[in-house]
Structures are given as C-alpha cells and as structure tokens.
C-alpha cells in the first residue's frame, strides 16, 4: 500500500556543515544523505562546501573529493566511473542517475545527493538492493532453448532479429528506473519493477529463445506486470536512455495478442 510518509526511524535530521578550504572562490554546496548504522541515530543531511576550481566535472568526482579531503567515512558504491558498471546509481538533484555521468554544471543551485529512493539504507548512499536482484533473477534472464547449440558455431540470428534486442540488452542493472517508480515504491514486494520487466522483455524478444509462452505465463499477474501505470519515471531516469515503459507496454500488448 502507498505510505507517503517516511517511517519514524527514517525521518531526516540536519547534520554537520563543512566549510570550503580558505581561499576557495568557486564554491558549490553539496547536501549529502548520511546514515551511520553504528550509532543508532536517524539519518541526516550533511552540507559540504566544495572548491570547484579543484574538482572534476562529475558529481562522482565531487563525492570522491569530499571522501578524500573532508570526511573519509562517506560511503558509496562506485567502480568504472564511465557509466557502464551501474554502481554509483543514486538520487541527485531529485532524480535517479549515475553520479559518474551527471555533470555538476548541469545542476542549478545546491546539489542534493540521496541514496536510491524507498530502499533500506545500509550506510550513507549505499542501499540494499537484495529484493531488486531477486526480482531480476525471477525473470530467469538467460537463454532457454529447446534445441542444443550447434557444436561448431554460435546460435545465429538474422540482422533484423538481432535488432529486436537493441534498447534492451544495454541495461546495466543500476536500479535507477525501478527505484524511481512510485508503483514500485508502494508495491515492490509484488510488482517486479521496470528493470526486471525490461530484462524479461529482452528474453521474450530474443529469436533464439523458445520459452516466450512460459515467460508470459509467469508475468500474467495483477501485480508482477500490471502495477505499471505508465508513469514514465523509469524512462525519464534511465542513464542509458533505454525505455522500460515501452518494454512493459510491449509485454502487455503480447499478453492481449496471444489471447487472439
């Protein structure tokens, strides 16, 4: 059910403020969500004044600068720093995206940085995505074929069949889309969410996969699929410019078409 308010243990407090180093002229303010599981206190917002003349262009650069210069205890996931690993997904300036591909200059005013919305927080910007990954696993994201692979070559596809996977296979499972979706916020225990559904559609669309009917059977459910109300936060959020809303609509269409 929709719970619009945060639980009592999640209500934010005002945290610490860290001034910029002396002599800094080009200052940008970063308001960062902090939660420390070891002290039993509610999460808070810390304010960091960052010297932009001595900082890289992306939000991830600023966060890592804060971590190395100001407060080493700031916790976040990151790896590739070029938008392919999907680790540094978080809520920046009110929308989910990757910190490594979000330019600081594109943000007017102070930069707010929160963990991905409506998730259990492990520490600071690190949220627990166990449920998200379990939902991905539940769509069985692998090739299911009735025939054995040819012994001497790959399973071949026509150019057109391969094109059906464009806009789907590029998903990096960063969870920006699913955790931007209000339907997912209210029903993540039963609604699979845009990322898992886009990946389900990736395998439904694969000419080499023989389990389309079985996959659709599995999704024919008032919650798993049909909690999508085309709010389109997912498509707005996707840092890879994919369109989960369209993939979900395509699954719904297949559901109708197969009934004839």
């Amino acid at each position, binding site marked *: *059910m929709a*719970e*619009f308010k*945060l*639980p009592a*243990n*999640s209500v*934010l407090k005002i945290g610490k403020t860290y001034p910029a180093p002396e002599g800094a002229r080009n200052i940008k303010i970063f308001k960062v*969500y902090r*939660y420390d*599981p070891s002290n039993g206190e*509610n*999460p808070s917002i810390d304010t960091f004044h960052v010297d932009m003349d001595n900082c890289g262009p992306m939000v991830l650069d600023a966060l890592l600068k804060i971590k190395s210069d100001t407060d080493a205890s700031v916790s976040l996931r990151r790896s590739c720093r070029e938008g392919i690993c999907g680790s540094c997904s978080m*809520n920046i*300036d*009110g*929308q989910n995206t990757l910190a490594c591909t979000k330019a600081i200059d594109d943000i007017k005013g102070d930069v*707010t940085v*929160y*963990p*991905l*919305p*409506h*998730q*259990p*927080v*492990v520490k600071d910007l690190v*949220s*627990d995505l166990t449920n998200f990954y379990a939902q991905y696993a539940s769509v069985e994201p692998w090739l299911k074929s009735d025939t054995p692979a040819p012994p001497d070559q790959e399973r071949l596809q026509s150019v057109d069949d391969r094109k059906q996977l464009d806009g789907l296979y590029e998903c990096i499972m960063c969870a920006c889309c699913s955790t*931007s979706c*209000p339907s997912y*916020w*209210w*029903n*993540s*225990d039963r609604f699979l969410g845009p990322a898992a559904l886009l990946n389900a559609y990736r395998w439904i669309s694969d000419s080499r996969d023989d389990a389309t009917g079985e996959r659709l059977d599995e999704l024919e459910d008032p919650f798993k699929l049909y909690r999508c*109300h*085309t*709010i*389109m*936060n997912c*498509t*707005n959020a996707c840092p890879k410019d994919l*369109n989960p*809303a*369209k993939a979900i*609509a*395509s699954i*719904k*269409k297949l559901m109708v078409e197969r009934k004839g």
Partner: protein
Amino acid sequence: MSWNDKRPMSPHLQIYKLPITAKLSILHRGTGAVLTIGLILLAIALAGAASGESAWESMHRLLSSWFGYLVLFGFTTSLYYHFCNGVRHLFWDSGMGLDLKSAEKSAIMVLIATVVLTVFTWVIALS
C-alpha cells in the same frame, strides 16, 4: 508495504522531482476519484429529479448556488481531463507514443484539450 526494517527507508516522494508524465499520472488518479464521488452526486441529483417537484426544486437551488457551480465545474474539468488522458492511455496500450518526447507532447495536448473542452462546455451552459 509496511516497514519492519531496523534500517531507515531512503526518502522517496519527499525528495523526488517528478517529471510532467508523473504529475499527470497523479492527476489521472485524482480525477478518477473525483469522478467516482461525482457519480454518486449525479445519482442523488437524478433521484431528486425523479421524486417530485419540490425535491427537484431544492436540488436545483443547491446546484445553482456558487458552491453548486464550483462542484459542477470541478466535475466537468475532472471528466474532460480523465477522458482525454484516457485516450492517451489507449494510444499507449496500442504501443504508440511511448517515447519520452511524444509522452511529453501528449501531456501538454491533454492539458490544452481539457481547458478548451471545459471552457467550451461552460460557455454553452452559461449562455
């Protein structure tokens, strides 16, 4: 989903900058609720009309008051918005207009159509 976790829930609605598509989705849900209540009022109005002249008179007086007009105006606006956005949903269900640019364009179109139809209806009603 009740929260039985010792760990905090990260903020969501409180901090999310909703795109226009999401705002219109909320409006669709809201106007749907208004129309449900409006349907009950319509049934009461019809029952009033069916149960004699005096009942109809008092119903008419109530609906012609400024408050009655306000309710009727809210009902017509909700009806046209919900109808136009419903048509938008039909296009989506047939697989059309689901890219971001089209969805934003159709959002504006729905809002314009709602205003035009509501104003048109009230110009006729009041003339």
